[in-house]
């Protein structure tokens, strides 16, 4: 039965951000807000999102900036708890959502791999077994024994990608990672994602690179303002996205022309 292969199932998912709580509150601002009771301060980053991903499927999520793509990945990774609805994942998950962010700046690359393994809950023995492979794949040379605060962003991305894909996850969540690193490593990571897709692992990929979606995803989803707008074959969804983006650009341009007619506050010169 096909349903037994469901890797991710989201039902009526909603994520609400309370603007009152976000951003480094001090007691003062909190009291002020509480006294003023300044209206509805919540904001839905995602609402009414329902979908399923089967094992062997590779889902590409696209959409404009701030649409809620990364928020959705964070929910799937368990980082955010739904404010509404629920999500179920079947299988071992690997998520390094912003690859290139190290675990501990002062530790060496090798120690960071160990720490990453511990954070991901991978057995100590398995980490030690995989360590040479990860080091080899990241291909950082002598830098592997240097603190990662000395790494360039490309090197961080390489290390991060090597760690994330080394654990043979059943479900791999990737966010905008494939654009980092030099051309050679991009090619290498492209190949590795291809392999993972071949191995019938479920993949959810958030990217702005439409070629990636077309090449490696067998399904795509377009999200705008926290809602699913389109879902289906990558080619269709990408076309839909491009059409809508073009419309938005045209609308913005029209608005831009309009706004220049309005008096602009005099500045510099």
């Amino acid at each position: 039965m096909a349903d037994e292969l469901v890797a991710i199932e989201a039902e009526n998912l909603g994520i609400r951000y309370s603007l009152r709580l976000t951003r480094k509150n001090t007691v003062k601002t909190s009291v002020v807000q509480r006294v003023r009771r300044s209206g509805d301060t919540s904001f839905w980053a995602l609402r009414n999102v329902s979908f399923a991903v089967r094992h062997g499927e590779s889902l590409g999520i696209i959409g404009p900036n701030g649409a809620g793509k990364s928020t959705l990945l964070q929910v799937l990774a368990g980082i955010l708890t739904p404010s509404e609805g629920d999500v179920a994942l079947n299988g071992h998950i690997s998520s390094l959502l912003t690859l290139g962010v190290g675990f501990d700046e002062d530790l060496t690359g090798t120690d960071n791999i160990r720490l990453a393994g511990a954070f991901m809950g991978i057995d100590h023995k398995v980490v030690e077994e995989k360590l040479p492979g990860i080091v080899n794949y990241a291909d950082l040379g002598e830098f592997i024994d240097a603190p990662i605060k000395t790494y360039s962003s490309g090197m961080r991305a390489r290390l991060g990608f090597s760690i994330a894909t080394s654990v043979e996850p059943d479900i791999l969540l990737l966010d905008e990672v494939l654009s980092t690193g030099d051309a050679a490593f991009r090619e290498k990571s492209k190949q590795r994602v291809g392999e993972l897709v071949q191995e019938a692992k479920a993949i959810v990929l958030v990217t702005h690179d439409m070629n990636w979606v077309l090449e490696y995803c067998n399904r795509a989803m377009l999200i705008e303002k926290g809602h699913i707008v389109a879902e289906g074959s990558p080619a269709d969804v990408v076309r839909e996205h491009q059409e809508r983006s073009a419309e938005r650009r045209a609308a913005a341009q029209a608005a831009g022309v309009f706004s220049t007619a309005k008096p602009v506050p005099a500045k510099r010169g």
Partner: protein
Amino acid sequence: MVPHARARPARGPREGAHATLPAVTSRSEVPSSFRSSSVRPGPLALIRLGITETLSRRRLIAYLVRAGLKKSGADTLLGNLWWILDPLLQMAIYWLLVGVILGRGTYEDYPLFIFAAILPWKWLDSTVKEGVRAVTSQERLIKQIYFPKLVLPLAVSVSGVVNFAFGLVPLVALMLLVYPQRLSWWLLLIPVIGVVQLLFSTGLAILVSGANVFYRDIGNLSRHLMRFWFYLSPTLYGMDTVATIAEKHPTFGPFITAWFRLNPMTYILTAYRDVIYYGRAPDWASLLAVAGISIVILALSVLFFKRVEPSFAKVL
């Protein structure tokens, strides 16, 4: 969708043998499947969850502690020798100030008298100060990967134990070289008092680490509160001094007595001083009472922490 499909990892026909359930559990310390829902569990379930996820992540805590220790000595010339020098220097300053300049060190063997209290106080102080930053300093990680955030304050708490254990080296050295007449078998009870202090300081670390996510003022506030607490605890003086002062001031006396009675550190520091300096049995009843209160504080802290944990990734 079939509901039972959620209960265990689904297996695709094209997947190799390594993807079977036993293989998954053998390579992972955490459940390979999870459900994240908007329904929040009740208080007891939350505390139980906090305990089980902490136990399953023992290794992560050990790694965090080790990483912290590795770093603390890495950039300094003397390295980990600082763990031994720190409490000694602190003792020297207070001895110079109170004992020599102010001439108030009326206790015999005053350096050892204050050292017996400074050592455990340093433990509490560093646990609270590092606890404040435990969650907020891992902002990027919290937004990047799922893990039980309780491990962060717990790692701070365990690091405190390790540092305290190193501090016992200069203590024993001081006693062997300068005050051999004060050595007694009661010293062996230090770990017992340490367990009580661990319960107490862990609760505090969890509480401040969670609260600081929402109110960054906690960091500034705690620095000052810790100094007040240090001077208003029997560190540089003993409880007999407190009794004399309370007698002298009839108006403030009751307040002073009440504060020292309610302050858990009074009993903990007095117990250390009993076994280290006086070479006598600690007051078991009050130690037991402090342990009981600490467990209650710990449970409430875990509950508070688990309640606010889902908001961390949003607020940070």
